[in-house]
């Protein structure tokens, strides 16, 4: 009944409002009839505000005119008809707020599809995988905390979920939570607003294992760091497992308290590196098998050779090939894949520009592109600048003077010196060698 009443309103509003406004502000509403009132539930307060200012009066008119003589008032609020999938205090939901600690759902669903069986192992991630398996077999005892770090799209989150799934297989009753650190911060803020912080604390501290993703997002959030610090200590003292991921080594996260950085290193810290070609191929084959798609190995090699920056990008390319095969009903062959990916590959090739090298190097070393182009000579800037110059020489057809120009108008001899310096350092300093190879792999495959 409420649906039909609301649907009738929707039809009129659709014809009256400009199409974009209707699609942006009216389509997201969910309708619910309760106690003689029509509840319109919006995803957030901005939708509510817009409707209050622009359309609520008209909606009230329509509801009155379609109301079969019954006086119905319209209540517009933030919320959802279905209970939220997972949230600590349901601040925006119409559903009742959880009152007891055990009713609090922490973080997000653990994805059953991320297991150790379908985690493709290669040189770049075997240590992290081995450590994660040990932790899953002996939670709270093997390595606590386990700190996994590395670039985006390299499988850190997959490993975390795999640990959780394995623990659940051994101990189905174990209390586990997988939480993205931004979610932890948001949930904590809501708990404070709704005065449920004690339930929040109790819920977190009574877990058997806490898996917290992307802890670099705690940077600069002192209040959340403080709470996390206490939760972390309580869990460690109780021999409850903590696993964290981060995009860099703990000591390198700016804006994180020293005491946290130091504690993060108490257990085991392992890195995941960008995958080498063979691992990329194996990942593609594994993902295709999961999608019940027959992917010839030569096609996997073709994709992996050209798109190597991270696993998610590989996944996007595979997705495109598989979808095209479904649309056209044609089998996936090398020719087919080349055709399906021709736009992406053409763009990928164009991406190896000096500009992109600068961007990638700056991201890798967590500095700004402007620093690379600046006159600064401190080693933390000068070394990445030299690496970027050497990469530009290796990966583009630009001349030394052109590369010098692109780096803040430097002389070609500076570029020559940089190339030689990096060549020498790669042989004697393992870290520089690894950085260079990682960047090369990211940029050119």
């Amino acid at each position: 009944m409420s649906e039909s009443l609301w649907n009738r309103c929707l039809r009129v509003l659709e014809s009256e409002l400009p199409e974009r406004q209707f699609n942006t502000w009216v389509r997201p509403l969910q309708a619910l009839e309760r106690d003689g009132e029509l509840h319109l539930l919006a995803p957030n307060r901005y939708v509510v505000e817009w409707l209050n200012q622009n359309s609520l009066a008209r909606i009230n008119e329509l509801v009155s005119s379609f109301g079969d003589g019954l006086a119905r008032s319209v209540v517009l609020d933030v919320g959802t008809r279905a209970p939220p999938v997972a949230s600590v205090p349901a601040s925006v939901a119409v559903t009742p707020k959880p009152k007891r600690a055990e009713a609090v759902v922490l973080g997000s669903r653990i994805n059953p599809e991320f297991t150790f069986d379908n985690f493709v192992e290669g040189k770049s991630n075997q240590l992290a995988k081995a450590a994660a398996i040990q932790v899953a077999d002996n939670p709270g005892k093997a390595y606590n905390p386990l700190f996994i770090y590395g670039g985006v799209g390299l499988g850190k989150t997959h490993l975390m979920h795999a640990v959780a799934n394995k623990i659940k297989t051994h101990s189905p009753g174990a209390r586990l939570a997988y939480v993205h650190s931004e979610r932890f911060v948001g949930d904590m803020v809501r708990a404070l607003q709704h005065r449920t912080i004690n339930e929040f604390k109790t819920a977190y501290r009574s877990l058997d294992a806490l898996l917290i993703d992307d802890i670099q997002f705690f940077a600069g959030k002192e209040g959340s760091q403080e709470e996390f610090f206490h939760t972390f200590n309580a869990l460690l003292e109780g021999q409850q497992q903590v696993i964290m991921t981060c995009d860099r080594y703990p000591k390198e996260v700016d804006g994180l308290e020293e005491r946290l950085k130091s504690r993060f290193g108490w257990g085991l810290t392992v890195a995941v590196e960008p995958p080498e070609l063979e691992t990329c191929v194996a990942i593609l084959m594994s993902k295709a098998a999961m999608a019940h798609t027959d992917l010839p190995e030569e096609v996997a090699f073709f994709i992996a050779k050209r798109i190597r920056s991270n696993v998610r990008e590989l996944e996007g390319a595979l997705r495109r090939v598989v979808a095209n095969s479904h649309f056209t009903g044609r089998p996936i062959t090398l020719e087919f894949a080349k055709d399906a990916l021709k736009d992406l590959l053409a763009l990928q090739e164009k991406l190896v520009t000096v500009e992109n090298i600068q961007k990638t190097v700056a991201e890798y070393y967590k500095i700004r592109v402007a620093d690379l182009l600046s006159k600064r000579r401190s080693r933390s800037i000068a070394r990445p600048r030299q690496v970027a110059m050497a990469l530009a020489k290796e990966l583009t057809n630009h001349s030394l003077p052109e590369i010098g120009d692109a780096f803040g108008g430097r002389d070609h001899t500076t570029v020559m010196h940089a190339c030689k310096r990096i060549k020498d350092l790669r042989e004697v300093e393992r870290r520089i060698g690894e950085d260079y190879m990682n960047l090369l792999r990211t940029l050119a495959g």
Partner: protein
Amino acid sequence: MRQLPLGVQLRTAAVFDNYYPGPNFEAVAAVRSQSPAPQWIWGAAATGKSHLLQSACAATAAPSAYVPLALDGCMPPEALEGFEQLALACIDDLDAIAGQPRWERALFALFNAAAESGTRLLFAARATPAALRWSLPDWASRAASCGVYQLRVLDDAERIEALRMRANRRGLELPLETAEYLLKRMPRDQQALFDLVDTLDEAALVAQRRLTVPFVRAALNLV
């Protein structure tokens, strides 16, 4: 005596039937497919990105949303909160916010929450995810995992075909020579193209004339 047109018109709204797929059939198929995987369509201005995104909303019975980021400069990133409760969220003009950390964080949060709740995500921009200058690598890598489809600008032959398709759908015969005559005077985007056919349809009905070149020239005040 002039005939008055009946007030019954084909919808000119953004729905899939009003879009001529032409060379972009794969992108259209992807958007129509209801696949839960996030998709990203990209192309030059007036290739129909907004049209397709809004068509996807119109084809979804459950609550959905279309958010054009370029149009509403005062909309804050928090306006994306709660979108994971919808069946479909379509975010347009991603290029307008590339490089803005707050927006990228909001998109990153939406992407993760949508993956968990099963909300379908459709994105549109003038460039591919890899070509935009993001500030948040976490979001950049997620954007890169979308199925990416390009929308190409129609060439002249395709524009004629699109025009005749629309005319045919309205029960009009648009002779090839008239279509060719219009070609140089036609706008490039499909919606404007279709509006032009609608105008001609009404004029032809009122005047009881066929769409000959002289009639079209007079009806559209073309010199």
